């Protein structure tokens, strides 16, 4: 193994960890998508919210009377012993944008899952990632019975930047989801390349 000193010294490899967010309306298939590629059954973690509506890191016994928890689904893909990708499904509702902020910090990119029968459900997510300049791809989850539209139609309906990848996908299908993730990361690379353009190599 080429990484570090994997001697007898029993020290495990410190992996580089990255994350991709999966956003979109309720019921659009976020959890399904995470489960389709995750090597672990999608896990669920909870963040406590105070009534004031921010994450409670300060666990002050006096003030934290009633807290609510919001669940986030996530999955893991170990790409190599030293490279691990996490997928996080964003909590569905706009009100939890502050959790998105935490999730979005350091995210390499995002998937916006869309359902053409209720495209408006993903407007908030598109807006969010555009504003924070987080590279994202739109994946149209093709439910049976939903009309198929050309990607250009979706692109126009969402008023997307022409560079933003739009893909048809089946959130239940591993290779389909893998293609979506590859599109996100390629888009992220292209963006970095653009931003670094003036730099000589």
């Amino acid at each position, binding site marked *: 193994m080429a990484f570090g000193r994997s001697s007898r010294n029993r020290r495990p490899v410190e992996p580089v960890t990255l994350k991709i967010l999966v956003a979109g309306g309720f019921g659009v298939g976020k959890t399904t998508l995470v489960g389709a590629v995750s090597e672990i059954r999608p896990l669920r973690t909870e963040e406590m919210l105070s009534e004031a509506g921010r994450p409670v890191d300060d*666990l002050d016994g006096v003030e934290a009377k009633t807290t609510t*928890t*919001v669940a986030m689904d996530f999955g893991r893909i170990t*790409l190599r012993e030293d490279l691990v990708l996490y997928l996080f499904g964003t909590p569905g509702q706009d009100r939890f944008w502050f959790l998105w902020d935490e999730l979005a910090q350091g995210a390499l990119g995002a998937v916006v899952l869309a359902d053409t029968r209720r495209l408006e459900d993903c407007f908030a997510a598109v807006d969010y990632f555009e504003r924070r300049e987080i590279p994202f791809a739109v994946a149209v989850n093709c439910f049976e019975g939903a009309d198929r539209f050309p990607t250009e139609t979706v692109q126009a309906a969402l008023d997307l930047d022409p560079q933003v990848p739009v893909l048809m996908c089946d959130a239940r299908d591993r290779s389909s989801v893998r293609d979506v993730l590859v599109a996100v990361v390629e888009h992220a690379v292209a963006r*970095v390349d653009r931003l670094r353009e003036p730099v000589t190599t």
Partner: protein
Amino acid sequence: MDGMSADTSRTPGTPGDPQSSRWYDADAGPVVRPYAMTRGRTSSASRHRLDLIAIVMPEPAADDPGRDQMLSPEHVEIIELCSEMPQSIAELAAGLDLPVGVVRVLVGDLVEDELVHVTRPVPPAELPDVNILREVINGLRAL
């Protein structure tokens, strides 16, 4: 800070209020009481906020068999989990069925005791390393 507890007018999910029920999807968890586990301690300001995907790695001292008496069962569980396999804050929270905020405090304790250390993910403001991104693409394609 009185008056805070009196304000129940914004309690979410009030039955019959279609507006409020929209805020929570089926994934929203129950309302829970505060955790006594951290004994009301706040995570110290000097500690950086542990990222969800920061990996908790055991230090050699974590093998010390005498340690257990000084630690809460939750601390011990964290050490055991990450000794089996280093894992992220998010995974620990899921594995222990504890909110992330609680796990952050507990892991912070263990960092202070030098029983574990925590990897620092890419600083958010920086552009990601393109070489790493390409490795991610290759890794995904090989799935």
